[in-house]
């Protein structure tokens, strides 16, 4: 199988008031295309920092991140932005919707940054946005603004947005945090289905071990270090 993501000796050191805080310490990880992995660990263990580095949102202090063989931190801003837009779908652990946009527009939003903005098939994008929202149980909320949606519904809109450009990688930080058990199970089913059918690679950060058990591999993080037991273990 092809390696989708290669993380090689990644460090992240923050300078907080002159004190060096090592958020990540020599993290190495290889993720094959189409795998569904989860990362578990206590708060502050560095999970989110790792996600943001491999998602091209935070520059590592040291080390390399390759996505499909491309060293993403060697790309210029335009290339890196294009990669985030086309290859990576983000699901954040907090509400991440644009308050002035309706649910359907929030889902379609990434399209304005695709191909330099405006050259993609908008009609097809909106049709797919409708389909995604309907699949996630929000077919009747297409025209609602975020303020008119519950926390769980907002979360599902942002999940739909992450899939709009049919990315190769989904990076999800506590994606089911605001969801009830039934919604959580539906979302995980949606992820699994997508993982199987589209061969999308999933990286899931969670505190929820039950959720982690549903993934192919589980990695643990502690004090900025990723477990080194040959790329993860099965819970």
């Amino acid at each position, binding site marked *: 199988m092809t390696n989708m993501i290669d993380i090689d000796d990644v460090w992240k050191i923050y300078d907080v008031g002159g004190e060096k805080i090592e958020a990540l310490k020599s993290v190495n990880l290889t993720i094959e295309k189409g795998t569904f992995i989860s990362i578990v660990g206590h708060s502050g263990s560095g999970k989110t920092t790792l996600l943001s580095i491999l998602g091209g949102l935070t520059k590592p202090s040291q080390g390399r991140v390759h996505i499909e063989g491309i060293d993403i931190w060697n790309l210029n801003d335009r290339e890196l932005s294009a990669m985030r837009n086309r290859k990576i779908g983000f699901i954040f652990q907090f509400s991440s919707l644009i308050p*002035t946009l309706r649910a359907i527009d929030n889902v379609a939003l990434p399209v304005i940054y695709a191909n330099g*903005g405006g050259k993609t098939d908008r009609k097809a994008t909106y049709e797919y946005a409708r389909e995604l929202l309907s699949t996630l149980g929000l077919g009747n909320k297409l025209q609602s603004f975020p303020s008119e949606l519950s926390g769980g519904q907002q979360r599902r809109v942002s999940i739909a947005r992450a899939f709009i450009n049919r990315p190769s990688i989904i990076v999800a930080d506590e994606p089911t945090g605001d969801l009830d058990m039934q919604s959580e199970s539906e979302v995980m089913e949606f992820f699994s289905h997508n993982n199987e059918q589209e061969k999308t690679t999933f990286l899931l950060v969670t505190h929820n071990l039950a959720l982690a058990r549903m993934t192919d591999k589980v990695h643990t993080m502690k004090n900025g270090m990723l477990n080194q037991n040959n790329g993860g273990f099965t819970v």
Partner: protein
Amino acid sequence: MNISQTSLALQNLARRTFRTYALLLAIAIVSGAIFSTSTLMWGVNNSLSKGLSKFGADLLVVPRGSMISMKSALLTGEPSLFYMEGGIMDKIASIKGVKSVSPQLFLTSVEGNCCVMGNAFIIGFNPKTDFTVLPWLEEKKERPFEMEDVIVGAANAYNVGDTVFFYGQNLTVYGKLDRTGVGLYDNAIFMNIERAYAMAEQSYKIPNVVPLKLVRGQVSAVLVQTEVGSKLPFISFTISKDPDVKVITAGNIITSVRQNLVTLFGSTLVLSFVLILANALMISAIFSTIVNERKRELGILRAIGASKMSIFKLIVSEAAMLTSMGGALGVFFGIVIMRVFQRTIIFNLKALNMPYLWPPASSIIMLASMAIVAAVVVGVAGAFYPALQGSRLQPYDAIRAGE
């Protein structure tokens, strides 16, 4: 409506309605002030250059002591009466470099049955030597100008073919001049100088009418046209040796009006530019706040694929949209206010010896566009630094800033 970078910017503006309207109003006031002031200044300048180019004379010789009255007559069409001996024309004509001279005689009609209207500014000219009236006829009868004819200025109510009467003499309106904004041409009634002398003599014979006090052979002004390449200062100096006359150049008149113009509008323009600077600073401060408020949102946009340039463009385009709308609003109000108060404006300008002619539509469109572009430049300049800051945010730091 499908989402786009433009609609996203518009929706962001609509998010804080009070702030957006307050900014719009502030920008509209400044652009409106700049547009109105520049339109008025343009109008005065336009009127001066158009009117004085039609004047056609390089020099104007008037009796000493009547220069101010002459300027007033020229610019506002205010009837002025002063006379000097016509013999001066021969002296002037003999000066080297003078191409032609032509006299003008100023008269004023009186109220009463003798005249079709009172206080009309009547100017006698010599059609044989004239180079300032006949060439500028906009419409005329299809025959030569005759003794019983008059020519009216554009602001005059009479039209070609109408009959008017002064001091018992019926006269036909032979032609009408193009509008210039310069009073002398727009308000006066021109007739053959010989007819004017005859009319003055006739005025003594009409009972209960104040006669025209002038003597045949006298003139009010002598218009001088010089040869191409001749030395105007030399000719002016030579004529000025005669202690009884004063020489006026078109440049003299334009300079004095422009001085008045600067006095009148200069402070408004200075104030407008101060306001522009204040607006730019205000926009900068407000957009800094906006960027701060929307850090997480900007971070999310970066996460879904917005480049630094896209973020920069988003913020700058919000400012550009806001200021262009404000600019357009200011221009609209400027036009409305100038149209509503146009009579008052023209009256007040005339009181200051400033002729006024509305600029042509093309110039108004150009000035309006310039005012709007200036507003946009102010907006973009004001939002530039905050936009740069917003675009430089690290996506993850920006996202976490809202936590």
